[in-house]
């Protein structure tokens, strides 16, 4: 399969990429790792007339950890996976990244590309929601920061404007009493999430004082589980408390069925994997 013809540009700066985006408008697509876009183009599900390949823009690549964690949009999954310090300050992210596709996919796929594509079964969106990621984007109007909670708007749709580019993702480092985890029921061939759950928990004085949960794969877009979060906050985080809270999983979201898993099965698995992710996050927070 060969994509339909397009003209190709490889800008070397963010400013140049933005001006190409403005110049070509709706016809243009940004090419990052290409592991969502190129398959879609080969299947003619996407036929952009212009590809803007941002891989030459070095400033978009790399992980910087100081007060918080800053990940350049063009950083590949394998670069994230092999960053030992990142794994210790963002365990849920490290855990999720190791489960993305396979090593060849992780060698090409990028965090910014995955978020911009917003595949309903991608792993990263759930982690971004649980870790309260701040997504930095830049466009002709300047730079703005979009919270993960406001970023994923629908299936394959985000708050990113067509003339904007994701430049980096900022996450908080985990502190004392905080834990995070990712638990996934993967499709065995594609490794996409049938259900993927990222959980963040903070314990203060033996009680759960904060909790954020992101679910991917089960519905048209990654979503928080506020009913579960509210049920867990204030509890002691015991196995019983987690089980009672996880029973609320999937309540406030659309759940989709397909040939791989029915709606009812995905709903049941959402509860199971919420429980697993929370159990692991609480254990790490202790």
């Amino acid at each position, binding site marked *: 399969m*060969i994509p339909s013809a397009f003209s*190709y540009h490889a800008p070397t700066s963010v400013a140049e990429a933005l001006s190409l985006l403005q110049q070509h408008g709706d016809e243009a697509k940004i090419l990052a790792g290409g*592991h969502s876009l*190129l398959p879609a183009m080969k299947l003619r599900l996407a036929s952009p007339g212009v590809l803007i390949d941002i891989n030459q823009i070095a400033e978009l690549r790399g992980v910087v950890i100081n007060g918080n964690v800053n990940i350049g949009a063009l950083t590949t999954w394998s670069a994230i996976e092999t960053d030992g310090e990142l794994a210790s300050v963002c365990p849920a992210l490290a855990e999720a990244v190791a489960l993305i596709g*396979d*090593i*060849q996919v992780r060698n090409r796929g990028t965090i910014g590309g995955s978020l911009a594509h917003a595949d309903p079964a991608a792993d990263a969106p759930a982690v971004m929601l649980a870790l309260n990621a701040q997504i930095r984007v830049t466009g002709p109007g300047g730079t703005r920061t979009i919270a993960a909670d406001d970023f994923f708007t629908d299936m394959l749709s985000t708050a990113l404007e067509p003339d904007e580019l994701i430049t980096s993702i900022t996450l908080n480092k985990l502190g004392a009493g905080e834990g995070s985890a990712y638990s996934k029921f993967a499709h065995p*061939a594609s490794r996409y999430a049938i259900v993927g759950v990222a959980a963040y928990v903070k314990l203060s004085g033996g009680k759960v004082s904060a909790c954020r949960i992101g679910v991917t794969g089960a519905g048209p877009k990654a979503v928080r589980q506020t009913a579960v979060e509210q049920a867990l906050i204030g509890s002691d985080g015991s196995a019983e408390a987690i089980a009672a809270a996880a029973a609320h999983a999937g309540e406030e979201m659309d759940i989709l069925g397909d040939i791989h898993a029915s709606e009812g099965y995905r709903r049941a698995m959402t509860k199971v994997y919420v429980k697993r992710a929370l159990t692991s996050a609480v254990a790490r927070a202790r």
Partner: protein
Amino acid sequence: MATITVTVNGKPHTNDVEPRTLLVHYLREQLNLTGTHIGCDTSQCGACVVHLNGQSVKSCTVLAIQCHGAEVTTIEGLAPQGQMHALQEGFWEKHGLQCGFCTPGMIMAAADLLERNPNPTDDEIRHGLEGNLCRCTGYENIVRAVRYAAEKMAVPAGD
């Protein structure tokens, strides 16, 4: 059309390509390196795995034009002409193939794995090769072949 220069198996090649030409088609049809196979063509099966600047990639999901200035290694370049790489020998010795269609990609993925982890456990071999599908062997002999290569490569040359 654009002109690209790519170093493939140590030798620079300059060719005209359409921007939409995939790396796998460039290798097979313009350079006649047909050892790299096209299987699923949807970045799942791994038959097309090559090394791009030292990392294993699925060449059905990379544009040739993106490889301008890059170094690519294919199965043809893994060992010098007339010799076999320890992995090629391992697949031979341990019957790591039947039809052979997945083998070039499997070996290139395994070579990348051994580069990162020279002494992998069986679990690590299976995890490292999860991007490569084989419909014949049931994987058992592939794992043995990779282990054979790991052991052989651990022995210093000359022993």
